[in-house]
Structures are given as structure tokens and as C-alpha cells.
């Protein structure tokens, strides 16, 4: 009954799924029951290729404890046409840049498999 269940079922299957309105075709992310463009409740799951570009990012560090593993939290412009928030790995904060091409991969973070992004290996 949770609106985001399909997303996590997709992650379990190694897929990044995005809701697609069955009536007007618009994609939406994060998950929600209703299409904001046509108010339809009918949707299907669109599998993203997981390619995009960095729209914005921050370096997240624990505010009060030593934190050697600061995380890059990034807003990703997916080529599908929606944005999602995720983490960037395999890149140092100093090498981050706006518009950097990135690609999806799945990684275990504190015992949970999450969709993550890394600099695109393809030119």
C-alpha cells in the first residue's frame, strides 16, 4: 500500500524504476499516487537507463562526530527527463562539477542496497 514500494522492488531487482502516467505519459519522481499533469491515478513503471548529469550537490558530513566518509549527495538530471536525489561515489569532492555526466550503479550502504551514481565511464 506504500506508494514507493514499486521503486524498492525495482532496486531489489537491480532496476531504477520511474512512474509513468498511463494517460498522458508524463514521468514523475519521487513516487506518488497521482499524475500532477492530468490527475490520473493510472501509471506504469518505466525502467531508466540510469544516465544523467549532476544538477547540484552537497558534501554531507556528520555535524558532531568525526566523519571520515563524507558523502556526496547529488541532484541528478536523468536523461529520462526527471530529477532524483542520490549519492555520487568513485569521485572526490574536489573533482565534482556541474553537468558532470554520471551513470547508475547499485551498492550496499550500511546494509541496504541503494541506487547510486558514479562518473560516467562512457564518453
Amino acid at each position, binding site marked *: 500500500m506504500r506508494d514507493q514500494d514499486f521503486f524498492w522492488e525495482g532496486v531489489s531487482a537491480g532496476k531504477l524504476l520511474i512512474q509513468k502516467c498511463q494517460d498522458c505519459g508524463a514521468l514523475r519522481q519521487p513516487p*506518488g*499516487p497521482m499524475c500532477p*499533469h492530468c*490527475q490520473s491515478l493510472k501509471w506504469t513503471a518505466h525502467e531508466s537507463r540510469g544516465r544523467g548529469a549532476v544538477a547540484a550537490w552537497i558534501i554531507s558530513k556528520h555535524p558532531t562526530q568525526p566523519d571520515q566518509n563524507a558523502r556526496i549527495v547529488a541532484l541528478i538530471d536523468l536523461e529520462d527527463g526527471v530529477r532524483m536525489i542520490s549519492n555520487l561515489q568513485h569521485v572526490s569532492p574536489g573533482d565534482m562539477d556541474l553537468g558532470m555526466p554520471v551513470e547508475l550503479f547499485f551498492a550496499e550502504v550500511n546494509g541496504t542496497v541503494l541506487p547510486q551514481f558514479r562518473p560516467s565511464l562512457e564518453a
Partner: protein
Amino acid sequence: MDTILNQTAIVGIGQTEFSKFSGRSELQLALEASKAALDDAGLSPADIDGAVTFTIDTNDEADLVRNLGIRELRWTARTTGGGGGASATVQLAAAAVASGAANTVLIYRAFNERSGQRFGQPIGGYAGGTPQQDIHFSFGFGHAGEDLLDVVPALYGEIRRDERGSGPLCRHRPRACGDQPACVVL
């Protein structure tokens, strides 16, 4: 003299079905009811510029905006608790319209009570108390369980004739606990 009464109007009302197991999230119920109210009023989501609900509602205003397609909320407010606060949500919305803070206010409330949280076994503390108060009221005033059926038409009528001051909408469930009346929040 201009009062809040002649400066404001309720222009649409919407609801979902009332069910024991809705099978949908509370957000979806809120969106379906909101869409029904907009259709009733002949308005679109872009016309809404204010929103009101209870403090105990789990649906964040931003989620209503994001899913319903509201373009910009200028004003939001929540009234304390739930239950009898229903009238206060209308009062808040009317005050916003009369003052010019907003033009068209969406009042929403969605709840999977029986569907989401077992009746009579409150977890948060607010889901189980009022039915017991209803039973107490019913027996205290010498009413049988069937009398609670009368509450429902009253709620759908022009005014709520309910001396309790607060409490859920009620309907009779004969088998819920023997012959005693029981209520569910709709």
C-alpha cells in the same frame, strides 16, 4: 456589515468511498477526495492557493502540491488535533479568504484508521479513544447502538447535531463487539 459569512463560500465538496480496507495510501485518499472536490467546484488544481488540514493528518502539504499539480501555495495552516477540529478547518480557510491571504483554499483530510491501525488498539494514542467515548455517551444517555446510525445522516445534513463536541463520524457495526455499538472514523 461585512462578515466572514458573506465574503466566503464553500464551492465544492469531495470524498472517497468509506471503507474498512481502502487498499490505498492516505496520500492517495487525500488526492482522490481533493480531485473530487475540485471537479465538484469546476476548478483546476492551479486555482488552489491555500491549504488547511489537521495537525494529525499524515499528508504533507508539499505532497499534495507535487501530486495534485497545484502550482503555488500562498498560505497554509493546520488546526490542532482532529475530530471536532473539522469545523475549525473551515473557519481557518474562511479567515484566509476574508483577509486576502488566499483566494481558493483546499481543506483536506485522509485517514486509514481501520485500514491502517487496528481499531481499539491505539498506537499513537489518538485512534482508539474516541470510539470508547462514543460508547460511553451512548449508554450514558440511554441510547442503544442503533441510535448511532442516526448520527450519520445528521453529519451529511446541514448541521452536525452532536452534543459531544468532538468525536468521530460513527456507524453501527453490530458484530464488532457483541451487541455493543462501535464506531469507526470515516
